[in-house]
């Protein structure tokens, strides 16, 4: 179990637009030797090109659509990937995309963009849950062979989240800004951190193509405008301009502390399971799995940090309550080595009850049909006996 920390980053005053609050994260020193993959930089993004002599490692964010291989077809990067100098010309692990004619025409330039909607999230979930690792007889052959099949999760693009597009448009990017925390109705929707300000400038508009859970969608739709946390200076203590300046500075520090302790608390205090995926140079890429504890914030994510624990890259997705419940079930199954009896005993429920939950969570197809029928019949029998 580990925590997520915003090492090397400080929060600056939030910028509010309607119900959306964006909190900029500033890096005192940008990380120069880990940069967005050079192929993603492109003339119409209007960013400085990366000097190949100084950059040894690069990264490709998950769901990034670009023309990677020589065949010229657009493909989405599958899972965030770290690469060193030797990998530069190798195409990343990717998913080919099929577009309708009209869509393909719009995508013909190598523009910065993320995958639309479901594909990215399904990719996420499939990455995080490989499916049963033990071939207990109850699991269907499909589940053993393929793992969890891609399933459409409820998620919305940033464009559908009310007010987010305008909030991103009028947001004033700080010099040296390397990240942002997105809040809808003051619920943390996503955290996004990159190593370098130039990367951030290139990726800032892509936040609108990103995914947000249904919770965020509904909060933004139903919540009213959020307060701006305006500065308040106690004028009785001010005798000179120096005092006033000190009070102004205190306001800024207070906000940063308040933000990291309270507002981002759900993200920073949570316990995460880290799965190390890759290590390149001093940087480690890992996947974050939340605790799936119910009734609290649960963020899925990917992060890159270095030996010194400095956070280089972070991208999170907030799960909705339903998704947390499903995730909780899957983690319990995984903890019980995917054995129904062990898991049921650990959870303190009967086996038919567990199967009913698996079915209710939409994972029924993982179990063999005859097993499901058997448990259903048993449950009916129990109910009939109770009724008598």
């Amino acid at each position: 179990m580990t925590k997520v920390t915003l090492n090397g980053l400080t929060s600056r005053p939030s910028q509010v637009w309607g119900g959306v609050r964006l909190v900029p994260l500033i890096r005192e020193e940008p990380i120069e030797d880990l940069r967005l993959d050079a192929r993603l930089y492109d003339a119409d993004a209007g960013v400085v090109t990366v000097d190949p002599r100084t950059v040894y490692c690069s990264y490709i964010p998950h769901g990034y659509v670009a023309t990677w291989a020589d065949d010229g077809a657009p493909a989405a990067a599958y899972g965030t990937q770290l690469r060193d100098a030797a990998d530069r010309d190798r195409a990343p692990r990717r998913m080919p995309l099929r577009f309708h004619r009209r869509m393909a025409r719009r995508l013909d330039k190598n523009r910065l963009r993320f995958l639309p909607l479901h594909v990215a999230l399904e990719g996420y979930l499939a990455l995080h849950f490989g499916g049963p690792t033990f071939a207990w007889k109850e699991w269907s052959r499909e589940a053993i062979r393929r793992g969890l099949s891609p399933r459409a999760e409820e998620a919305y693009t940033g464009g559908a989240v009310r007010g987010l597009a305008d909030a991103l448009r009028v947001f004033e990017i700080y010099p040296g800004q390397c990240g942002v925390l997105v809040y809808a109705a003051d619920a943390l929707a996503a955290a996004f951190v990159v190593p370098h300000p130039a990367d951030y400038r290139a990726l800032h508009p892509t936040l609108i193509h990103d995914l947000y859970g249904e919770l965020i969608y509904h909060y933004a739709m139903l919540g009213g405008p959020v307060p701006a946390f305006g500065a308040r200076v106690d004028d009785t203590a001010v005798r000179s301009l120096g005092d006033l300046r000190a009070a102004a500075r205190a306001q800024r520090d207070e906000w940063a502390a308040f933000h990291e302790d309270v507002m981002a608390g759900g993200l920073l205090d949570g316990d995460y399971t880290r799965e190390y995926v890759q290590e390149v140079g001093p940087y480690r890429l890992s996947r974050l799995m939340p605790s799936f504890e119910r009734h609290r914030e649960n963020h899925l994510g990917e992060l890159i940090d270095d030996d010194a624990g400095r956070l280089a890259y972070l991208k999170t997705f907030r799960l909705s309550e339903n998704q947390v419940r499903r995730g909780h079930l899957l983690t319990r199954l995984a903890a019980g080595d995917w054995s129904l009896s062990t898991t049921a005993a650990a959870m303190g429920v009967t086996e038919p009850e567990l199967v009913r939950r698996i079915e209710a969570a939409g994972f029924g197809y993982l179990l063999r049909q005859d097993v499901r029928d058997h448990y259903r019949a048993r449950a009916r029998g129990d109910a009939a006996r109770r009724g008598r």
Partner: protein
Amino acid sequence: MARAETSADLIAAEDVLLFVNAAITSTGQREFHSGADEQSLSLDFLHEYVLGNYRDLYAATLALDVNDHNAVLIARNLLVTAAEASAEQRRAEGRLIARRLALLPPQRVYGLFRRLRRARVNNRRTRAIMRDWLAARPDPAFDAVKYRAAVKDAVRHAHLAPAGELGPFLFTPHRPAAYRTPILETWRRAHYEQAAMYDLPYTVAEGFAARHGVPRGAFLERVAPRLTRLERLRLQESARGLGAEAVRADLGTMPLTRLASYVLGLSLEDRRNRRDELTAALRTAARRAAGEDAGRWGTVAAVLDDSFSAYGSGQKRRRPLAVALACHFLLEALAAEYTPLWLSGRADALSVRPYGPTPLGERILDALELGTARLVIVSDGWDNAPPGLAGEVLRIWRTRLDPSRACAIVHLNPVYDAADFDVRRLAPTVPTAGVRDAENLVALVELAQFAEGRTGLPELRAHLARRVEDFLREGP
């Protein structure tokens, strides 16, 4: 006889000042924070509200520096509702409208006439105003060529009989075999002869060039002598890209804010290479705008907004930043000793660009520490790093640190906030005025200081009456 101040009077005074701010800044176009629809909806509401409640004050604002867009709206609304006014009001309004129309660019006035036609407003006063304005035009034949459709509409709407060859030209243009008026004859020939079109106004010649298939570069090169001053400024850069070097604007004669917009439209590299030329042009324009006040303002500090929101919008590109840059040069000319403080911390005014947050509070603190006699803040008022700090700093400065008002502070705001029906204010103790052209800075600052205490309706009426009198006296 002194009249007791009632709260209704105070509200009336506030309403009118608010309307004046809106009428100076808003053009119904998209801004950084609000769309064009919101802007014009909000502006239309204000117009109707002030017209309905304070008709005489509404008409009097024509004498102030309201922008052309609003001047046209005011004139139109007054004419549309002429039936609601008394005979005396109508007479006063008629004089104000006629005087204002004489100052407006002709295309705006023709636009107004066409809007009146569309709104089916054809009362006697409207016809008289149209007749008098058209009669005062220096060259009716030139107007008929340049604004053909609009002149035709106006003549038809006001029941006028165009003199001489204009009638046939407007209504049966291709019937006469030749015209005796030179410009009409040139226009006829330009249909067949390429060389003739270069003697026509640029906007008309442009249409003929497309018809004859003349390449743009060659066309601009030859039409250069016919360009107006502002057309030259607008076309200079694109003409240079096409190799038409003849299109050269004389930067020394340009108005200050337009010039600032032009400078900000250039790339940073161009600005560096032409630094001496551009600085000299901006200084000349600023000295001209400062007039006899140059050097008389003592020590001045300015906080100038170059945050990302100073970009404005696609329709008003870099307008807030251009106003700030123009104010910078104007204040430099006005002050004996001047310190500019850009929000980004940049020292070189010529290389400003809209980027970064708006830490107004901290920069105002920096400015107050200088201890100058005046402080001018040019910003759209979206203080966000942290929000509200500027208001707190100004409040505490006024109430505790400088209660004797040794430092005169004024906030000029180039952006109309559609949601609040006013320009955004920083603090109640600091006067805020809308600004469209930096050239009006001197008048606005004087006015703002006069308005620093709460102005009652009688003072405001007196002030407006004085302005109206001056405005009408300046006329022919």
